[in-house]
């Protein structure tokens, strides 16, 4: 029972990350009509925003280690600590949550630049060309990251206070053994907040209404004399921010390395297709669904029954859904065929 609950939480967690990436991907596809294979790279850039921020905070000076007296030993001490003492250390400890403040504007800029510089010129090109050019961009971005940060994963810990586990078991009366990492709970909660705000934005604001109308029938909206182009640029920026924040927050869960973007890209594409290309609700639902399925499939009970199922469950589900429901769970006819 505990293990199922744990896996369910794991699945929700994974699903949250999937949903956040897929959300932007499907939003961009539904509005701009662009298949963006560089979307995984946005997630990657977000994660490395957190890494960079942490690295900047911990820029250190070599100082003599006072505890070693019989020869000159140096240790690295962050300037922040030298200048502000305890407060400085606390800031470093909180690097990941604080990095969100930097991640949002950075990702917005990256997103706008990407849309203006490249994506915009591919609206009218074929999906195949869109896929290929953004695939090229994804490679370029990931290789730039590798050039600056190397090929190894970079540990980016969460703040001390939430690095432990929450005793969920004792809260709900399932015993002390049932614990779950705090940061993952925070991730899940933040993802819920982000997803809800995107939905609120799309459904409660005029801007969102126009965007949804544009997703439904772009020409119609253009006929109404609304400057759809500008709105689409903003949508792309928004998608970049969502993916970036998802990446930054994910850094403490799995230490980021340069190819995490590609890893997530394939899965999130599968999710978008399962949810239905261009359907925001479908993407979120499919993200959580596949995240949970993947986690449940990795339980020993399941994998002893069907060896290897945890490795392929997502793709298997995608194949089955695509064959039985060609437009995905909530897709509309004629998109992307």
């Amino acid at each position, binding site marked *: 029972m505990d293990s199922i609950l744990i896996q369910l939480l794991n699945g929700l967690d994974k699903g949250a990350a999937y949903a956040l990436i897929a959300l932007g991907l499907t939003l961009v596809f539904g509005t701009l009509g662009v*298949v963006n294979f560089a979307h995984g790279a946005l997630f990657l850039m977000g994660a490395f925003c957190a890494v960079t921020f942490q690295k900047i905070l911990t820029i250190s000076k070599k100082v003599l280690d006072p505890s070693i007296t019989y020869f000159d030993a140096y240790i690295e001490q962050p300037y922040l600590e030298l200048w502000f003492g305890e407060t400085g250390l606390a800031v470093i400890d909180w690097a990941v949550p604080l990095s969100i403040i930097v991640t949002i504007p950075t990702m917005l800029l990256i997103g706008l630049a990407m849309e203006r510089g*490249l994506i915009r*010129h591919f609206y009218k*090109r074929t*999906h*195949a*060309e869109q*896929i*290929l*050019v953004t*695939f*090229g*961009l*994804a*490679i*370029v971005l990931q*290789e*730039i990251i*590798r*050039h600056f940060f190397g090929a190894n994963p970079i540990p980016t810990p969460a703040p001390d206070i939430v690095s432990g586990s929450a005793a969920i078991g004792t809260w709900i009366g399932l015993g002390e053994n049932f614990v779950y990492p705090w940061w993952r709970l925070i991730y899940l909660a933040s993802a819920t907040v982000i997803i809800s705000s995107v939905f609120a934005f799309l459904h409660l604001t005029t801007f969102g209404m126009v965007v949804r109308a544009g997703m439904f029938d772009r020409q119609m909206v253009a006929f109404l004399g609304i400057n759809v182009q500008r709105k689409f640029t903003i949508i792309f920026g928004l998608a970049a921010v969502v993916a970036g924040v998802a990446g930054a927050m994910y850094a403490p869960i799995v230490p980021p390395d340069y190819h995490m973007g*590609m890893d997530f890209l*394939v899965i999130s*594409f*599968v999710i978008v*297709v399962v949810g239905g*290309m261009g359907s925001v609700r479908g993407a979120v639902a499919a993200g959580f669904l596949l995240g949970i399925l993947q986690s449940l499939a990795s339980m020993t009970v399941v994998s002893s029954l069907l*060896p*290897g199922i945890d*490795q*392929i469950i997502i*793709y*298997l589900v*995608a*194949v089955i859904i*695509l*064959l039985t429901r*060609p437009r995905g769970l909530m897709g509309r006819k004629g998109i*992307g*065929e």
Partner: protein
Amino acid sequence: MMNSIKQQLMNLFKKQSDLTTILLFAAGVLTMPIWLDPIGANYPDLLQKFVIFGIFAVGYNILFGLTGYLSFGHAVFLGVGSYTAVWSFKLFTMNVLPAMLFATLISGLIAAAIGFVSMRRSGIYFSILTLAFAQMFYNLAYSVLIPITNGETGLQLRMHDIRIIDNYFSDPAPGLPSTELFGMSMNGYSGFYFCAVVLILAFYVAMKIFRSPFGMKLKAIKSNQHRMRYTGSDTRPYLITAFIISGMFAGLAGALLAVTDPLAGAERMQWTASGEVILMTILGGVGTLFGPLLGVGIIKYLENIFSTINESVLQQFFSFLPQWGENFMVAIVSPFVGDGWHLTLGILFMIIIIFLPGGLMEGFQKIKKRYLTKGVKDSESTTKQE
């Protein structure tokens, strides 16, 4: 004078008959060690890569070039081909022919299965389906299929492999055996020449397909599938056939990779490897006969050059500059070479798709047209002056 040059050019570009094309092609491929020597590409490893990936790309082009269906799963067939070939070496014989036969057949079977399912959808859905299958194979190769694939170590030859056929005729020699074709070793140049012959055959098959009613029907499907159905052709079997053929080409290429180096690893099946063959095909020119080969040549050659350059080579290269200039240039160029080859590749990829989606062959056509029409204008103006 002008006119005769023009005439010659025209003749050169005119569609050759099947026989002339294949003879010219064969001559070109077999003399590669000679004409690639000046640019420093004349060594067996690289030559083998040229021809093997040439087969891969020529086959991929039959699917993508003729039907327009963008598969992200073709690296699977490359991998399957390699694994099958190595197993044939381990179980039966070191002779390469059975290995190639098995590899082609088995990858054809798997292509039939994947194609049968994936071809139920078109557009991005097709691409995603092939991508999903590729990921499944890749992930399985590292988990439940480890008995077949040997996981991360990769499948290798071993001393105690049974090799039924070889061991039946002669006692195993000491040391690891090497691949052979009736006694001819497949290392070095002989390996290259063998692969080159296979490429020539493969190219011949592709050319025949391109210039057959079947090929024309595939082009029609690419152009307007809806019309094709109302014209009385059932498009699905045509598409599946194209998928299987291109899968078999990939399997054959995978087998040759194992022939020249009997080792198979799952990284060959990664979807980014499928991306590479797409790039090579596009760079040269999708849907043209020679384009994909040109693309393979350029990418593999650049890969070879770029990835071997390191900082000291760069310093030597820029040593004519003053010290600060040398440092500056080395700092600028070094991210793009060595490990940074992939960065260059990505940039190249983008440039091609942005500026030359029709590939180099289209670029040549444009230049040719411009030159030829200019030639006509020139001759017109000279006539006027006269």
